[in-house]
């Protein structure tokens, strides 16, 4: 007698279904008389009893189904989630004054989480699942399912500025990560190769513990004084001279050399940050020789302190991962290299760096997603970015406006994270690890 295989209940899909059913018990949308007024909760069945029942059945199916059937049911649940929301927003807003707003509430978000978990369970069937998700979301956007939700109404009145702030957000975090890679990886290499440089790890770790507001408070008067007192060519000259002076001083007194390097390095970072950001971002600036630095965009508020602070915060994962990666290179690999007659330089480029590369790439990835998140604080110092909407929303008591800033930041972080994960996987394959 042939045994039927025991029915396999996937716990992850079960969790998704549980969350989905729970979500139906929570209010799905909130109706507010204005964007700052308290909301009145509504459940799905308040406007579409059949929809609630349909979702209940779909979730029960997701828990039990397998293979393509499960993906199909998830797709239907995704569509139901969006369409019910759109229909609810229309129903609740009809007959309301213009200032009335509908905002997503607990049930909406919990269903989103349930869908995420559900797709996570289905994902092992192949990458094509992702395509169905994108297709479903595109369909919902095309049908205008979310158009009348509060955050999208906020988007309508801030449309132009939204795209500028998005661009600013990307240019601020992009320049910070690029600079942090340019500084952090060499620092990590130094720290791994030279026991005298171990303090680098301590310093970068310490930098991350400084609250951003305190750091801005520190940088504002400092950068303002420098940017008004120092002329551009003098600053550039000082940096170049400093590099030579460092070599001379290093032989005499390490600490003196390091303090010179730190202060001039910070100045160079501030200048590079402001310029890189203006190159990548929507706020172009002219570089004016013979005038104080502030004419060239290095100021106490705005992009310069923001990128500088973000760069300092992003250093830790890069330095740490480079250090760990290089320290983790097996001694046997080094021996083999030396046995083949490699010079120390060749050993570094051909053996140590390639072997440490996966961890360094991980460092870049965590630095990038971390930075996209904390670029939010740039708005505190007039540098803009999506944090602007969060700040203004919190200040004005408008949760929809907070979402207009927060949701894109989350999406950006996820997007950059998975893009870099993909890139690092592709690179590893090419290097052959």
């Amino acid at each position, binding site marked *: 007698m042939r045994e039927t295989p025991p029915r396999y209940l996937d716990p992850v899909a079960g969790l998704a279904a549980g969350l989905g059913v729970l979500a139906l018990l929570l209010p799905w949308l909130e109706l507010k*008389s*204005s*964007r*700052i*007024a*308290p909301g009145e909760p509504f459940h799905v069945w308040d406007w579409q009893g059949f929809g609630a029942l349909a979702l209940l059945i779909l979730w029960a199916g997701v828990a039990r189904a397998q293979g393509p059937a499960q993906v199909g049911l998830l797709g239907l649940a995704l569509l139901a989630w969006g369409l019910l929301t759109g229909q609810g927003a229309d129903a609740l807003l009809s007959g309301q004054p*213009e*200032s009335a*707003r509908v905002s997503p509430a607990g049930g909406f978000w919990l269903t989103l989480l349930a869908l995420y978990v559900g797709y996570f369970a289905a994902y092992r069937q192949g990458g094509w699942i992702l395509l169905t998700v994108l297709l479903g979301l595109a369909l919902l956007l095309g049908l205008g399912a979310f158009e009348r939700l509060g955050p999208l*109404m*906020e988007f309508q*009145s*801030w449309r132009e*500025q939204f795209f500028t702030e998005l661009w600013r957000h990307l240019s601020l975090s992009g320049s910070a990560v690029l600079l942090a890679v340019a500084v952090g990886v060499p620092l990590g290499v130094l720290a791994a190769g030279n026991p005298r440089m171990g303090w680098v790890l301590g310093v970068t770790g310490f930098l991350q513990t400084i609250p951003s507001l305190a750091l*801005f*408070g520190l940088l*504002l*008067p400092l950068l*303002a*004084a420098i940017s*008004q007192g120092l002329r551009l060519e003098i600053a550039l000259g000082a940096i170049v001279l400093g590099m030579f002076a460092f070599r001379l001083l290093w032989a005499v007194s390490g600490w003196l050399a390091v303090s010179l390097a730190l202060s001039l390095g910070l100045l160079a970072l501030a200048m590079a940050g402001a310029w890189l950001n203006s190159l990548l971002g929507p706020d172009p600036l002219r570089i004016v020789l013979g005038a104080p630095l*502030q004419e060239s965009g290095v*100021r*106490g*508020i*705005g992009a310069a302190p923001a990128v500088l602070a973000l760069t300092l915060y992003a250093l830790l994962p890069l330095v740490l991962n480079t250090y760990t990666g290089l320290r983790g290179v097996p001694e046997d690999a080094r021996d083999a290299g030396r046995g083949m007659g490699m010079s120390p330089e060749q050993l570094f480029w051909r053996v140590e760096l390639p072997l440490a590369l996966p961890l360094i790439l991980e460092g870049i990835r965590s630095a990038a997603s971390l930075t996209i998140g904390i670029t939010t604080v740039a*708005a*505190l*110092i*007039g540098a803009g970015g999506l944090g*602007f909407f969060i*700040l*203004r929303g*919190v*200040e*004005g*008591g*408008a949760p*929809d*406006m907070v979402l207009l800033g927060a949701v894109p930041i989350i999406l950006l972080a996820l997007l950059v994270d998975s893009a870099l994960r993909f890139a690092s996987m592709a690179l590893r394959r090419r290097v052959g690890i």
Partner: protein
Amino acid sequence: MKSVFAFLIALGLGLALAQKGPITVGSKIDTEGAVLCQMVKILLEANGFRVNDRCSTGTTDVVRKALTSGEIDLYPEYTGTALGVFFKNDPSAQAVTRDAAKGFARVKELDAKNNIVWLNPAPANNTWAIAVPRTLAQQNNLRTMADFARWVNGGAQVRLAASQEFVDRDDALKAFERVYGFKLKPEQLVILPGGNTTQTQQAAARGTGGVNAAMAYGTDGGIAALGLVALTDPRGAVAVYQPAITVRKAVFDRFPELATLINPVFATLDEATLSQLNAEVAVSGKNPAEVARAYLRSKNFIR
């Protein structure tokens, strides 16, 4: 190709010479700051200035530091804030916080030493007030702070949401208590960090934690939308907060026409107008730049 570049450079130079400035405008992060900042920006641009937009620069400390250190050239500040915060150790400043004319004259004089010029203030008083839910006001017949005092002294369950500054300062809650003769116990105060009136008012509107009274500002746009009413202060107990543009002296000396451009606009901004403009941003969710432009057009300051 060369001639195209030459043309572009000449064009750029010509435009740069034709325009005055640049002038960097800033403001606090609040609604009124954003509206006033955009208003000045649009007005200056319409009069041939090049303007760097740094509106919503930061909190009071950041934006003031930005002005005194030359990061920005001008921003709207309140007479009461300057007297009470920037000159808090100056007894001559503390003596005049409740008098609009004397207070402005004093702050203009004191800040001149910091090389900051005050343009004329708007005839509005964005001062502290206490707001209560409309239904509660009707039930207990509350219209003025004197009614509030009677209500508190009658043993009502009052819980007031406020900022630390409102509670601590001598010319805010303490002045209300002194002039109208009531005293809130510490357990009747809910201190919200940051001191943001939208948050205190939302707490009162929702009854969060039993809160049924909120610190408010005179020109807040959201009071009515949240179903609250602000109680009037007929005896003028608290400090006067008139908004005015503060400019760095170096910039003002270069462009004295800033006064002739901005003063007439500020002269039209009374309390009702400012509340209306703030409400369009805070309640209807419009963009401050749009609101400012529409207002300037409606009053024929720009075309």
